[in-house]
């Protein structure tokens, strides 16, 4: 650890910024940035051609686990409609 590294955050055993971050997009996919691997249930790495990926959250993508924009066609909502 170099002297320039930021202090560990509360509840975080590691130092420095997280290796990856996930954005839960409203009515859309999970956007994953940083250093990570997407693997099959058996642990085999899935092909990945870009640094930042969008993971399907609505279940309708034909490119699963990646998003193909289908959530817009099926009207997928991440929040219940206002009463």
């Amino acid at each position, binding site marked *: 650890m170099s002297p320039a590294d930021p202090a560990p955050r509360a509840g975080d055993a590691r130092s420095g910024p997280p290796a990856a971050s996930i954005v839960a997009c*409203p009515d*859309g996919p999970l956007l994953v940035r940083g250093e990570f691997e997407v693997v099959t249930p058996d642990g085999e790495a899935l092909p990945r051609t*870009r*640094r930042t990926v*969008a993971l399907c959250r609505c279940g309708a993508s034909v*490119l699963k686990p990646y998003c*193909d*924009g289908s959530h817009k*066609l099926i009207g997928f909502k991440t929040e219940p409609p206002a009463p």
Partner: protein
Amino acid sequence: MKQPTARGNVSALLLEITTGEPPAADKVKHLEDAVRTALARTADVVVEDDLQLTLFCLYELHYSGLDGAAEGWEWDPGLIRVRQLIEAVFEERLRTAVVVDAAPEPTSDAVAAELFRMTGEDTGPSMSRFVAREANAEQLREFLIQKSIYQLKEADPHTWAIPRLTGRAKAALVEIQADEYGGGHPDRMHSALFARTMRAVGLDDTYGAYIDAAPAITLASTNMMSLFGLNRRLRGAIVGHLTAYEMTSSQPNRLYARGFARHGYGEDATGYFEEHVEADAVHEQIAGRDLAGGLVEADPRLLGDVLFGAAAALLVDSWMTRHIMDAWAEGRSSLQPDRSFAA
């Protein structure tokens, strides 16, 4: 880019001027007068062949240059003045035609939601459904020729905006553009993938090879991006334009891939479209919230232009689609008459 064929006295004058050395004040003044006359006479600059080709060539001096043109013309004050004359009428035409019917709160979430709403509405005939189900082999080639005017320099007009943005919006644009440019792999650049598709169906993938075949509306669609991209004051519009493109790409590209597969073409032809299904499902999220939303949060005064740029992208592309689909419905080519590029 190769020298196009002139479409009238204005583009003929420009091409004659640029093959000489700058400055040529008398000739440029003559060109300016001809442009003023043409602009005063035209009913609709969007479909005016001579003026759209002239504007395209003036912009091209900032991209790949024009074969045979002296490079010093790029910043010639006389040619910049001519460009601004056409730009002013073109922009006014777009601002008059475009309807922006909502003003969301200047927050990232609200801007993204409004852009997703705008781009989710069905606007006119669907090129992608036709390509998927009905287009014949010649129409598929013609479709690629029409797209090649932009797609062979895909992403370039939006890249002009990078040094004009800061913070979150800039990081978002660079993240999208890095992916557009292949993430460090030249053969994965979207323009290179499109060139591969053109080769797969036996078309010339040289940039500008089909410039003479492109109707005015196709040139106008790309000129609009250069207008928004090259003028800092329109940075909101180029951001809105890119966001609209990203948000209307995934599903149509899946259908385009299906159309080429239906005609027996393999991955070398469909790969470009399949790449966009996945890429633009990522890009639309970044573009909506971080690029457009981030820009508006940093400078709320740009909200109107972000929405204008998005609406203009949708409107002009609907005009281009209508031009092509109307021609096909009448059993003729949508390309410039008296040319046989699609054969």
